[in-house]
């Protein structure tokens, strides 16, 4: 859907607008840089240097943990996890129809992006790559009917997030929880790793409330997403 030749013609028609838009945005950023006082830039530079050093130490620690993890996995005969690389993408625009929760990013086939690649922000998962063109891709956000995520509630059961529960972005339905599940508001929700698309342990959000549905056959909970998907400007795409 949305990838027919007619859609491609439509995209080609709008390419000049994308070019103009990118040019204006670039000039705006340049202007902002020119207008920022030098003292402010020096302060920020010092702050970022400190942060880089902190992160370098953190990376060293995590590399050690990864080495240990790999060694332990090989000791107990578990399969090694596929290493993922992250690539930063800029959000170009968003599908105007409210029933699709889709954004377009400026990475495509030429950057190594593949269909179904997980997309996240530092706050948590935002969705997966749905369609890939040569120079850009469409990301199906959590809440879009085509982005189903198998998740696990902290100290609780597994369920499936399949669509948004309200007109406003940021709240989604967590379905198919066992009726015996005891859920408390504030419990954290992570990807379960089941399904093979999303790696295990990526934060999704927190439980707001829950209710029995389908005559008490199973439970449904509302989850507030950690990542603010209504204000996405830059996202990270996982590339194999």
């Amino acid at each position: 859907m949305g990838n027919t030749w007619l859609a491609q013609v439509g995209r080609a028609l709008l390419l000049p607008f994308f070019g103009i838009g990118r040019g204006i945005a670039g000039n705006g950023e340049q202007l902002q840089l020119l207008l920022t006082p030098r003292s402010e830039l020096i302060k920020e530079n010092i702050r970022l240097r400190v942060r880089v050093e902190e992160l370098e130490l953190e990376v060293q620690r995590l590399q050690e943990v990864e080495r240990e993890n790999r060694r332990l996995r090989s000791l107990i005969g578990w399969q090694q996890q596929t290493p993922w690389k992250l690539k930063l993408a800029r959000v170009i625009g968003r599908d105007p129809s409210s029933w699709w929760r889709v954004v377009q990013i400026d990475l495509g086939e030429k950057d190594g992006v593949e269909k179904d690649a997980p997309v996240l922000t530092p706050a948590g998962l935002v969705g997966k790559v749905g369609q890939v063109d040569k120079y850009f891709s469409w990301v199906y956000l959590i809440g879009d009917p085509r982005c189903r995520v198998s998740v696990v509630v902290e100290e609780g059961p597994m369920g499936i997030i399949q669509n948004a529960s309200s007109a406003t972005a940021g709240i989604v339905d967590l379905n198919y929880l066992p009726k015996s599940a005891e859920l408390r508001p504030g419990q954290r929700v992570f990807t379960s790793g089941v399904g093979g698309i999303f790696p295990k342990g990526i934060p999704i959000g927190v439980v707001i409330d829950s209710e029995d549905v389908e005559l008490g056959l199973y439970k449904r909970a509302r989850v507030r997403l950690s990542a603010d998907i209504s204000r996405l400007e830059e996202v990270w795409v996982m590339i194999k």
Partner: protein
Amino acid sequence: MGDDQIKNVYSWAIAVVVPVVCYLEFICELPRRVIGIQPDVLPAVLTWGWLVLGPFSITLLAFWAALCFSGISQNPFLVTFLPIAVFGLWIYRQRGVLLVRNSVTQIVVSGVGAGVVTLGQYILLILSGVKMDVGASLIYQVIVNVVFCAVMGPIFCVFFQYLGIVLVPRKSGQGSFRPDREIRRGRIIC
């Protein structure tokens, strides 16, 4: 001749505005941050075309709008095209009872058009097998689209009318001079 010329100007003007509006809907985040969703104002842009153009132009503009919209949306082409074209042609058939230059008519046509187009797209998506929720979010989307288009429709109509006045040279009217009533000096020679 003049009528055809002005209709051509309207068609071209609408055709130019459509991709601009599509692109703005694609990149503009402000409405989404304020009201939660992006209103679709394409019906408002097309209202003037529905009210004054012929069936061929209405269909062609619907095709063009759907083509541009397909470039920024996951909606299949036909899902966008059919409601716009069908409603436009229906308005064309009702034109005999509509005061096309009246603001109230433009508000009603634009608002109703927005509602019909949004609901039509939704129904077509469900018929094409997409699992969609029919609930509060749909009603909210319809209301927002209707309100925005009802407000924007007359504004676009005035804009296109103005373009027509500016871009089409008017034929000068006949003067009061009549050669048979010219007063000639001197004797009348029979």
